[in-house]
């Protein structure tokens, strides 16, 4: 934190979520509590000969889009931008800020970091490439750039809400959403801005998922049983289930939140992002364990807490070969025996791996669990992986009440990048 004056406490005052298993906070919380899977058979994946033919896609989006957005907006929005807009509008309203309107004044005190992993692949695959390859560039119209630019998702949210602070998109593969929240936290903590909408978004294009399918990292064994396909920590896990959606949080300085009498869900007390350098066992596609351990410890250090104060963990846990390594890295980072690891759960067991949106959706899940005092069960891990067996007591398999104060959430991504954030319950 060299050079940064640390003076501001940062709290979460709004949440917006569009997940494969629920839109809106009530539906998402109920789905998490109930172990409701949002994974479904996807016809297009079967037609295109994907090994994995299931995915997590938010439902009812066409109707929502028309309820939330004007016709001229929709003419220039791909699915990722629509997801971002719905969650962004929900987050803003949940935070109790001024009415959203085309003539609303610019809010110079709010910015946005809305990340995405792959970007506007739907537009690129379905429109841009086919038209350009036919020599029909002129027929692309005016709306290509704003849909394929990486910052499409943050730009759309910024325009709808009239944000006057920094409005940007970060991208760090599967760490993206969590990194966005951590970066926003640090912007507010150091006094640069009062509020930021932060999190991640990912569209549901089969073009986005194709490369993962070719890598053989997607679940291909449960096409006939979609709800059982996403199996983090399970012995029978065969890869991750691709997901999509948007999860956004309104982070705000405590002074600003108290000044306007905002409802506070939780406090962000620390966060860290780093990389393992793709050395010491790390690579483009696998984390260096030393990087993970340093990341978790740095986040706890910034939070000013000891490992014994971690009451629960929301893991990255995708259902690949990496899950057992993740548990071991947590054990090492917290310096505890396997039996003493804090309770840990995997939101991806219900929504799949939403790539750039994963961290956002899971940070929302983490804050909901803290605020509403529960830990959601991880479904589909009755048959724990043998290497996770020593951690059995820590794996949350059934939803239960939770009275802890602190949940740590981590995300890891291609490029050997890590993010870890510490949320603390706000006393009601």
């Amino acid at each position: 934190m060299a050079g940064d004056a640390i003076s501001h406490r940062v709290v979460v005052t709004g949440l917006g979520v569009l997940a494969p298993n629920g839109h809106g906070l009530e539906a998402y919380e109920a789905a998490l509590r109930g172990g409701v899977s949002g994974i479904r058979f996807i016809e297009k994946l079967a037609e295109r000969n994907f090994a994995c033919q299931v995915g997590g896609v938010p439902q009812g989006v066409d109707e929502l889009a028309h309820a939330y957005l004007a016709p001229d907006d929709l003419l220039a929005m791909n699915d990722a931008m629509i997801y971002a807009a719905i969650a962004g509008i929900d987050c803003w309203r949940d935070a109790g800020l001024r009415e959203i309107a085309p003539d609303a004044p610019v809010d110079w005190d709010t910015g946005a970091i809305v990340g995405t992993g792959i970007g506007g692949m739907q537009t690129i695959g379905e429109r841009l490439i086919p038209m350009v390859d036919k020599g029909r560039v002129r027929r692309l119209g005016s709306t290509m750039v704003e849909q394929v630019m990486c910052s499409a998702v943050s730009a759309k949210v910024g325009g709808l809400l009239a944000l006057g602070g920094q409005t940007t998109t970060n991208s760090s593969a599967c760490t993206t959403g969590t990194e966005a929240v951590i970066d926003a936290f640090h912007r507010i903590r150091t006094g640069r801005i009062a509020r930021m909408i932060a999190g991640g978004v990912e569209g549901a294009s089969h073009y986005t998922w194709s490369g993962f399918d070719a890598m053989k990292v997607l679940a291909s064994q449960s096409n006939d049983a979609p709800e059982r396909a996403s199996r983090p920590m399970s012995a029978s896990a065969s890869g991750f289930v691709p997901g999509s959606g948007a999860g956004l949080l309104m982070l705000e300085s405590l002074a600003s939140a108290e000044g306007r009498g905002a409802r506070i869900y939780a406090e962000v007390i620390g966060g860290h992002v780093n990389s393992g350098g793709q050395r010491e066992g790390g690579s483009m596609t696998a984390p260096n364990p030393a990087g993970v351990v340093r990341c978790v410890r740095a986040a706890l250090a910034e939070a000013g807490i000891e490992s014994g104060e971690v009451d629960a963990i929301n893991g990255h846990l995708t259902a690949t070969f990496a899950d057992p390594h993740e548990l071991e890295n947590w054990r090492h980072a917290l310096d505890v025996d396997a039996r003493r690891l804090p309770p840990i759960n995997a939101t991806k067991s219900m929504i799949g791996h939403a790539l750039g949106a994963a961290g956002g959706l899971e940070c929302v899940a983490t804050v909901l669990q803290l605020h509403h005092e529960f830990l959601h069960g991880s479904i589909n891990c009755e048959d724990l992986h043998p290497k996770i067996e020593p951690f059995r007591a820590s794996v949350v398999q059934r939803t239960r009440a939770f009275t802890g104060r602190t949940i740590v959430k981590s995300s890891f991504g291609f490029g050997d990048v890590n993010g870890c954030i510490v949320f603390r319950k706000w006393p009601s």
Partner: protein
Amino acid sequence: MTEAEITEKVIALVTPYVKNRKALSNITPDTTFLADLGINSARLVDIVLAFEDEFGIEVSDDAADSIATVGDAVALIGKLVP
């Protein structure tokens, strides 16, 4: 095709792009796409493509640049329609 028919189709084609929805209720030939209807200027490109598709015409860039009002569009299309 009559001028009234062209006008009706032009209005239908631009309607999705109109931000100032109130202005839709009393459109005249002098109604401007940008100032009156509040259409984002970048979208004029898409509107011209929509005219081309609907009327089976080709609009040159220069001709497209000359369109400012509903009346301009109707007159231009009237000249180009086969």
